[in-house]
């Protein structure tokens, strides 16, 4: 009995240690270090200075920051809302399609997962470019004046974030819709509900867990966005991620960057805790970054 449990412990230990130790050293410690370094002075060469200081934390009172945080939040929330509003009917459509059509649509949705993130963003830079096709088409239709700028504004960031996040919302919603019993929709219509009413009052509550997990999967990466506002957003559309990168690479002030990273962590944890508390016991699976086709 005793011998057996010691052998068991040894087996568990040897299977657990590699990943546990790795993630402890390269994930947990670095995350904790963010807080420590925020209390360190900057080093003019771009490193971390000696001693401790509160100066960095004080610098968070920079009047520009509330604006950036607010922009980060509204862009993220709006992106999430638009993405879910689009993805829910799409998931409904995929789940109700014939197997052949379902496979095709899913396949086409999954392909963007496998293509480079940077390239997908860059493609939009080409489309939105002042000399790009979209601009010319819109001017030709007299929808905008020739000197309107499509690129380098918060709306462009919004558009591209929706574009990159949509597949992440469609897949978990489809997984939930697939398990949904569609005879409930027919029952609702049989009882006199209109199509929209049946969709909103039967289908949407039926896939609620999927909606919550899709919401988190979109919202959290949006809050941490960096590349999209950097490439299509410009100065007036900077988000928290951009400021962190600027402190790191341009100002070479690592303590300031880590103080901001701590702020980002808090901003990110807020919705996470809100959902976890509301949805206690609900399952939210891991973000399936790239589903295997």
């Amino acid at each position, binding site marked *: 009995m005793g011998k057996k449990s010691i052998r068991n412990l040894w087996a568990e230990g040897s299977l657990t240690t590699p990943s546990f130790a790795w993630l402890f050293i390269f994930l947990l410690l*670095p995350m904790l*270090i963010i807080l420590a370094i925020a209390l360190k002075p900057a080093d003019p060469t771009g490193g971390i200075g000696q001693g401790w200081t509160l100066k960095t934390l004080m610098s968070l009172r920079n009047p520009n920051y509330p604006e950036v945080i607010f922009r980060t939040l509204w862009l993220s929330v709006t992106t999430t809302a638009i993405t879910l509003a689009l993805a829910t009917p799409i998931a409904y459509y995929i789940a109700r399609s014939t197997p052949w059509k379902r496979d095709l649509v899913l396949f086409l949705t999954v392909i963007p997962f496998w293509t*480079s993130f940077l390239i997908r963003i860059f493609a*939009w830079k080409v489309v939105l470019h002042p000399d790009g096709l979209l601009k010319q088409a819109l001017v030709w239709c007299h929808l905008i004046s020739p000197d309107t700028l499509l690129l380098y504004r918060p709306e462009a960031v919004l558009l591209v974030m929706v*574009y990159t996040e949509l597949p992440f919302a469609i897949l978990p919603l489809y997984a939930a819709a697939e398990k949904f019993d569609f005879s409930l929709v027919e029952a609702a219509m049989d009882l006199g509900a209109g199509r929209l009413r049946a969709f909103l009052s039967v289908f949407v509550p039926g896939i609620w867990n999927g909606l919550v997990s899709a919401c988190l999967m979109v919202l959290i*990466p949006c809050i941490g966005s960096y590349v999209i506002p950097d490439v299509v957003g410009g100065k007036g559309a900077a988000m928290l991620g951009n400021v962190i990168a600027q402190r790191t690479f341009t100002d070479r002030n690592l303590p300031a960057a880590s103080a901001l*990273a701590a702020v980002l962590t808090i901003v990110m944890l807020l919705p996470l805790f809100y959902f976890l508390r509301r949805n206690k016991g609900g399952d939210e699976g891991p973000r399936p970054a790239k589903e295997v086709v």
Partner: protein
Amino acid sequence: MIKKSKVPGVLTWGTLLFFYLPIFLLILNSFNNSRTGGGWGGFTFQWYVKLFQTREIWHALQNTLIVAFVSTLASIVIGTTAAIALHRYKGRLQNMHYFLVYTPLVVPEILLGISLLLFFVALKVELGIGTVIIAHITFCLSYVTMAVLSRLQDFDMAILEAARDLGANTWTMTWQVLIPNILPGIVAGGLLAFTLSVDDFVISFFVAGPGATTLPIHIYSMIRRGSMPLINALSTVLLAVTFLAILIYQIINRRKAGATS
């Protein structure tokens, strides 16, 4: 018969168009002789010729592949043992373990990047290809673990008991029965890790030193410098490679499914 609404269908196909239109325009532009891509300046291969003459790209590709291969192999080994441990054992230790494995899946890349950068700087570790590999293993192993774990959950554990019952010791049971059966999960996780590693920009950007430019970092600097036609050409090549890989994967998968069902 209740008439179906057309709205979801229109939305779906409209969204798919939205997915592919920019990519399609990008491919088209890579053959466009006009520098800005504003109008059609005639068909050309010149951007591709220039692309293949750029030495930095080949160097960046080499770095990317080294990082991807090493971190995929390492995360397959670490991730598979993690999945087996998580599946076989329960308790406080494994709850903590699961939390650690799960975290990289939900934390924004920029946080992983900045925290590792601070960690390396604080420990005075020189940034380079080694730090990029460490960073990639850290997030790739979580994806491998999840892929293998989902395969293990579909796996009938009685099969392992059957192997023991027929005289297998732990070693033969693991290598002749367990591993062959969770191999699809390991392969899927490995493929996922590989593509994530090849594609990763944000984390690499933070932890790569000046010498360790990977392909995404190089593409990013090209985007910043604004050599648009060259990126069009490079993107098209990469897209072609991706599509080819997906196609081959699908064919292999179909054939396998056909053979066993």
